[in-house]
């Protein structure tokens, strides 16, 4: 047996120093008691000599009284701390245990495996760097294994370890293990979990737990403990741009005004230029203050206080950032939600959202879909009930400084609080912002888009022409641009020809590529609008959701959707480029109107019925609309 806190006497100070230099790995174990999860943790604690004699005596007594191991030590009893759990032989809540080996310190969160405890698993997983997913060698990859893997991936847990347990009951058979490993890797790959280690073990007998199993000479990978001790920990947070969410304004007297918080990424030193979000005010760091004296440099993970050269208004919930690389600010996001309450989630109902150090009211929009955690399928749904996961939009009453979850856990996570019960009813991850808040200047530039546009006597806008292939979009757009140009306006026309041959030449015509195509065109238009231009976009853009996505990128009034309404029969009859004929012959896949759907706009700003209007007439209507909407300010 390996003794872990190997202290054999001698220099205690040197020993303490060595202890202090150790790093810390936080991990969770997922699986149910049937898989031997508590046994596995109990075994780790036992083997790591984390149990004292009196605890062992108590364990022996408990094992005799309630044990399931016929007189042997029942390690599960060590971990299942609540009386109800011991009685029922299940794990209800998350239990945290700390232990140490001579390489590393560990905090393990033991989380329940059943589907009704998904929220408890997420609780444990939210702070973990690694997850051990247990499975029973007799059963192989089960629904719950897939669920656990999915949730770990969702939470962004970097390292997954699959412990194939109870190998003793399968005669330590290599083929059994290889088959399970293969099945699992295939599944993990399909959901994008790429850092996976699979280890055959017997937690009960200790095989491949700490010491190499003599029963499985065919296995040459690391033992579980060897893997836990060597997997790289920590993150690259320190190398990312500086962010300090303000927790508490530190004001002992008139002469000192500091901002206390925990640095969530990057470093800070006196003289650094900073920007405070959402206000976008800037200043310079004066001091990095701690109880033990000022620091030359503060790094990610430290809780400290900074002071600034200028007196600017900063309060709890603001985020102090590197001036040249600040966080984003928004009040609308696409988010992933895990619901944790018995009362279902209600779209439109006001909840409180706490992200970092800020709590703001807001609402969740209709669900885009929920995820069947057992099959990973996306399912249409109106609400989420306990333990369900879904994707929707979040609208906050006030904009917040944030970062997508995958970039920074601290700035991209939030909890949902019920305003009436005050309970934590859900957790969420920010995927991305839908649009930046209209009243926020994330870059407080002096020359902004209105200034640029004013020179050309216009307010920037996107004229988004949508319609079937051959409907006449480009013809009309071309005429509109000519008129605007003649009147001295700054314009640009984006169409399939100039975009698909360059920017988007790597994209095909599948649904996924069409979405990406429109997303890029939307982003490019946004930049051009920011440059003050009147942008004419002529794309089939068949899907409502993508047109909406483009619309949401722009500010109010900037997105003008123009539906060039030509019937399929008419477009096919014209067939200027001969494409319909080809599509009908099956030579073009995914052709809108023939083998791929076109979703008509319901409320376009302008609808051009080409059976009633000539292209010239349509162009006049559109230019008149711009004048009426105040987009053309030049006389």
């Amino acid at each position, binding site marked *: 047996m390996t003794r872990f806190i190997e202290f054999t006497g001698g220099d205690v100070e040197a020993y303490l120093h060595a202890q202090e230099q150790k790093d810390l790995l936080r991990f969770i174990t997922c699986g149910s008691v049937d898989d031997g999860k508590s046994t596995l943790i109990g075994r780790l604690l036992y083997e790591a000599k984390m149990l004292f004699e009196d605890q062992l005596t108590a364990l022996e007594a408990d094992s005799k009284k309630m044990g399931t191991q016929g007189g042997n030590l029942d390690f599960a009893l060590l971990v299942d701390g609540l009386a109800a759990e011991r009685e029922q032989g299940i794990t209800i809540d998350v*239990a945290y*245990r700390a232990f140490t080996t001579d390489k590393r310190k560990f905090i393990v969160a033991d989380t329940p495996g059943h589907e009704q405890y998904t929220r408890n698993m997420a609780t444990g997983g939210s702070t973990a760097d690694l997850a051990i997913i247990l499975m029973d060698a007799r059963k192989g990859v089960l629904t719950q294994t897939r669920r656990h893997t999915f949730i770990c991936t969702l939470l962004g847990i970097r390292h997954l370890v699959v412990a194939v347990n109870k190998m003793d009951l399968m005669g330590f058979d290599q083929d059994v293990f290889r088959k399970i490993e293969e099945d699992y890797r295939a599944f993990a790959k399909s959901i*994008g979990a790429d850092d996976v280690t699979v280890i055959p073990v017997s937690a009960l007998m200790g095989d491949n737990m700490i010491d190499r199993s003599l029963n499985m000479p065919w296995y040459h990978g690391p033992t579980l403990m060897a893997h836990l001790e060597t997997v790289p920990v920590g993150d690259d947070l320190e190398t990312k741009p500086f962010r300090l969410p303000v927790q508490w304004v530190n004001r002992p007297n008139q002469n000192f005004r500091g901002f206390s918080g925990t640095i969530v990424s990057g470093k800070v030193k006196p003289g650094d230029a900073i920007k405070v979000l959402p206000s976008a005010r800037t200043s310079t760091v004066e001091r990095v203050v701690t109880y033990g004296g000022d620091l030359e440099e503060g790094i990610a*993970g*430290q809780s400290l206080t900074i002071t600034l050269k200028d007196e600017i208004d900063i309060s709890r919930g603001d985020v102090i950032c590197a001036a040249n690389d600040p966080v984003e600010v928004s009040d609308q996001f696409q988010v992933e939600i895990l619901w944790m309450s018995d009362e279902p989630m209600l779209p439109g109902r006001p909840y409180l959202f706490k992200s970092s150090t800020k709590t703001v009211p807001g609402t969740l929009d209709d669900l885009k879909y929920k995820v069947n955690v057992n099959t990973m399928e996306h399912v249409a749904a109106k609400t989420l009930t306990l333990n369900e996961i879904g994707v929707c939009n979040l609208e906050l009453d006030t904009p917040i400084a944030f970062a997508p979850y995958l970039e920074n856990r601290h700035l991209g996570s939030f909890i949902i609080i019920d305003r009436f019960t005050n309970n934590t009813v859900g957790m969420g991850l920010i995927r991305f912002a839908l649009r930046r808040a209209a009243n926020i200047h994330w870059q407080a530039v002096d020359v902004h888009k209105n200034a640029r546009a004013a020179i050309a006597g216009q307010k920037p806008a996107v004229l988004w022409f949508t319609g079937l292939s051959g409907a006449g979009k480009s013809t009309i757009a071309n005429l509109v641009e000519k008129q605007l140009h003649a009147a001295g306006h700054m314009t640009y026309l984006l169409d399939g020809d100039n975009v698909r041959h360059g920017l988007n030449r790597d994209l095909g015509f599948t649904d996924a590529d069409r979405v990406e195509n429109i997303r890029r065109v939307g982003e490019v238009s946004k930049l051009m609008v920011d440059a003050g231009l009147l942008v004419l976009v002529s794309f089939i853009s068949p899907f409502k959701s993508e047109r909406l996505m483009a619309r949401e990128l722009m500010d109010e009034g900037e997105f003008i959707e123009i539906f060039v309404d030509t019937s399929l029969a008419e477009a096919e009859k014209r067939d200027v480029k001969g494409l319909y004929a080809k599509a009908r012959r099956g030579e073009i896949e995914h052709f809108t109107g023939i083998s791929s759907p076109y979703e008509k706009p319901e409320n376009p700003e302008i609808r051009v019925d080409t059976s009633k209007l000539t292209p010239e007439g349509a162009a006049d209507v559109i230019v008149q609309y711009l004048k009426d909407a105040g987009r053309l300010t030049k006389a």
Partner: protein
Amino acid sequence: MDSVAKSFLAEIERFLETAGLEPTTLGKQALGDPSFVFDLRKGRSPSTRTIGKLRVWMQQQNALSKPAASTAPAPLTGETTKVANPAKHDLTHLERLEAESIHIIREVAAECEKPVMLYSIGKDSAVMLHLALKAFYPSKPPFPLMHVDTGWKFQDMYKLRDETVKKGGWDLISYKNPEGVAKNVNPFDHGSALHTQIMKTDGLKQALDKYGFDAAFGGARRDEEKSRAKERIFSFRDSRHRWDPKNQRPELWNLYNARKNKGESIRVFPLSNWTELDIWQYIYRENIEIVPLYFAAERPIVWRDGQMIMVDDDRMRLNPGEKPEMRKVRFRTLGCYPLTGAIDSTATSLLDIVEEMLVATSSERQGRVIDKDAAASMEKKKQEGYF
């Protein structure tokens, strides 16, 4: 650069680091484009197809490298394979624990109306007070200390309490259950259970109600006891100060929900993730003053139920024929002196204590008479309102 591209880039960077590959090699082998990673770093948005292609490639590489690594048994005792990064200095685990505790203490100060820090004068309390001073420096912590006094603490404890309060400029509320005082409740006549219930558990509830504190910091750690291992850092109590272990709020990331209903109060445990060794290590590193009783000295003791009880003052009732003997002892935990067992020891310095602890064979709560009942004893006490 959009979020998809950003997270994909992060994925690639991680892969490069673990695989020890050059970015040019990756780009060339996977996509035939040596500058791919550099372009991505500059902000290029890859297509979904390119992302998919590269992911598959990286997975293949991972799958290939795993068996290769496993042809030789992994060293069980070799050096850790930490990726060297000279520009990076990771926080040690003690620094991480410290930062986490400070974060917790500040969250309470920012979100609760009237917090208080419970001070039991033990080593964990000493660490907690020290962390509170650090959390708000140069301001003073925006809450008072409260000592729920049973009247039977060691004299050395009262002494250190008063010194600490003076030195740190703390406001201290010392509260003794007046009912218990009036009835002269003590461990000898009433037994350990009733004494603890009246003077400690009831006393605490009365004090919190009397002053209207909505949050109370305690120095409990998860490694002390099984039911504590399951308790949240922010632990809610109903209006009768009861803990409902089956109905705890989820606690995610470091986002603590401090909102409470009328009548509810919160117990906050900033030292939840510390172990006994961490505490000693921190006391040593930060040079924190602790009660001298933790160090071995010749002390007058008597034997009671197999425990060495110190005769700390003349209120200690001796049984007929019982005579205090002088013995070199110390205490691993401190409470009411008639209820706290000493251990034989020669440890006279912090380093001695740590050394003794490292070779110890029993857990620290062994010296506590009150935990000795049934296995679920602490859980039951907590449900009834014990801290």
